[in-house]
């Protein structure tokens, strides 16, 4: 059986989700091609849908659009932006981002839960961006989230899995896909997240700030695949003490 990522009933072969916000438009295309991403986020506030520079022309048609609500400061604003996205035919996927902090850009979990609840009831496939917290993740699932997207580190920081411990708990406890969003800076960190069992990794800055952008996209694609395979294979144990004898020390015991 194929190992697919399923979000809100939609299957995807790639577990690399691309944030498009920090690229030049023509770069988006190159990165999608090299990274094999099947989901690309789109900041609705940036979408210049009528003007010359229409981002949609740069996103290949087979790619699923994940419009986000960036710019929203309250649940209500996020809901309005989501509805607008649907009106302009961006589909039913929505990444909920509610941010009231212009310095660290940390998501406001409380408002995010409220928006998720409203949008899920309206039939959206809601993927909320969250500050990792078990209770919040549970509340988001109860509110109808199709996936949860905890941050690994402050957005744009390229610092990697700073919130690793909590993400690991989410992987163990939360039954919808866990997508690590924000903060991943290197392919090796993406790989590590995937080895831990997260379902997908989202990247933007890490690729956008690379010297060779398409090549870095490829590197992320391979790292995410490698991490996934390692997870599926089941990682060998890590020994803490002395080496383990291959013939057991207790073999002499009579049954």
């Amino acid at each position, binding site marked *: 059986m194929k190992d697919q990522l399923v979000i809100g009933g939609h299957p995807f072969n790639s577990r690399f989700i691309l944030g498009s*916000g*920090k*690229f*030049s*438009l023509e*770069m988006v295309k190159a990165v999608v091609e090299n990274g094999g991403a099947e989901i690309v986020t789109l900041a*609705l*506030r*940036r*979408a*210049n849908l009528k*003007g*010359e*520079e229409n981002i949609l022309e740069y996103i290949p048609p087979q790619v699923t659009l994940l419009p986000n609500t960036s*710019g*929203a*400061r309250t649940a*209500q*604003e996020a809901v*309005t*932006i989501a509805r*607008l996205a649907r009106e302009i035919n961006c589909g039913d996927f929505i990444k909920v981002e509610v941010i*009231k*902090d*212009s*310095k660290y*850009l940390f998501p406001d979990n409380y408002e995010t839960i409220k928006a998720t609840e409203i949008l899920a009831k309206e039939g959206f496939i809601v993927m909320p961006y969250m500050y990792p917290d078990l209770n919040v993740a549970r509340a988001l699932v109860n509110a109808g989230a199709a996936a949860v997207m905890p941050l690994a580190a402050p957005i*744009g*920081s*390229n610092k990697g899995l700073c919130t690793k411990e909590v993400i690991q708990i989410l992987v163990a406890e939360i039954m919808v896909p866990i997508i690590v969003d924000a903060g991943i800076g290197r392919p090796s960190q993406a790989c590590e997240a995937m080895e831990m069992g997260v379902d997908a990794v989202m990247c*933007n*800055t890490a690729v*956008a*700030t690379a010297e060779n952008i398409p090549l870095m996209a490829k590197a992320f694609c391979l790292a995410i695949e490698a991490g996934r395979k390692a997870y599926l294979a089941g990682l060998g144990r890590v020994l803490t003490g002395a080496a383990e004898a291959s013939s057991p020390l207790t073999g002499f015991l009579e049954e």
Partner: protein
Amino acid sequence: MSIKRTDPMVYHKEMEMIPSDLLDKVLKHVDNYDYFNDTKRDVEQALSKEQLSFKDFGALLSPAATPYLEEMAKKAGSETKKHFGNNICLFTPLYIANYCENNCVYCGFNCKNKIRRGKLSMAEMDQELKTIAKTGLKEILILTGESRHHSGVEYIGAGVKLASKYFSTVGIEIYPLNSDEYAYLRKCGADFVSVYQETYNCIKYEQVHLSGPKRVFPYRFYAQERALMGGMRGVSFGALLGLDDFRKDAFATGLHAYLIQQKYPHAEIGFSTPRIRPFINNADNNPNDVHERQLLQVMLAYRLFMPYAGITISTRERAGFRDHVIGMVATKISAGVRVGVGGHEQEDKGDEQFEISDPRSVPAVHQMILARGLQPVYSDYIRV
């Protein structure tokens, strides 16, 4: 005729006073800032840090940092890329009036200067806005001279309402208001407020603002805070570099913005870095010791101190300078600029505030941005 000089620290009775201690805080730090004490070591320290303290910020503004400009530029470039990616926002200003009640000695609009005054009627404004909107721009900055009498809050409100029909972001650069007036303009569709303190040196401030409401130093200082109390999304800061000691003024500007950001975490912060320019009837007005090198140093220090803040590069600067600072440090650039009153569709109705150095059109600036491997962004905000 002798003019009665008023105390610049005393509010006029119609001016709202808010309970805040930011002014004391900023002035205290600035008083203690002696950039001659900063050493190479302080600069190196600052450059090695991820989050700059006030002291580090001061060091980057000091003369000791001059030999480190290249390093500052490299670091600033990567910070800008981290926070803003390839995006450069485009906007244009529209002067809807140039009446002014103030006598600022450095400005061509000052009430003593014999220039052609004018203000746009609603129909003219509509025409202008439509013409600008046709260029594809989605962000506009509405400016007036500072005259409550000729361009009252209602008039500006009506202009903002019109503008928000055509533009997704409307900024205003007008005289300081009370918080309820900002709330009113917010309702009309204004998103961002720019107020430039010009100089944070109270004595100099008094000397260059001879008369008019602008003379009241603290009322101007607290404008950003009142704007945020009125519900604005963001506020911009700037000192007029060259008016007084530019290092101290840049230091004060940074602290002012930083402290506002601490107090209002949601506020989107912007910086502008205007230098003194020649203006009508005063062609010799020059930026003293603020040359491009110093100007760049200030911009880089702002970027490293507040990496997430927007920085606008003015049309006052020459094209070559503007082209190089976008992406490295500036995130916002104007295009298709006219600094007379109106002038996009019809003949302008009033004289310009200062001379611009980069008259390029929107398509020309757009092409330049692309040629530098950056992405021109027209819309960065959604009206909800």
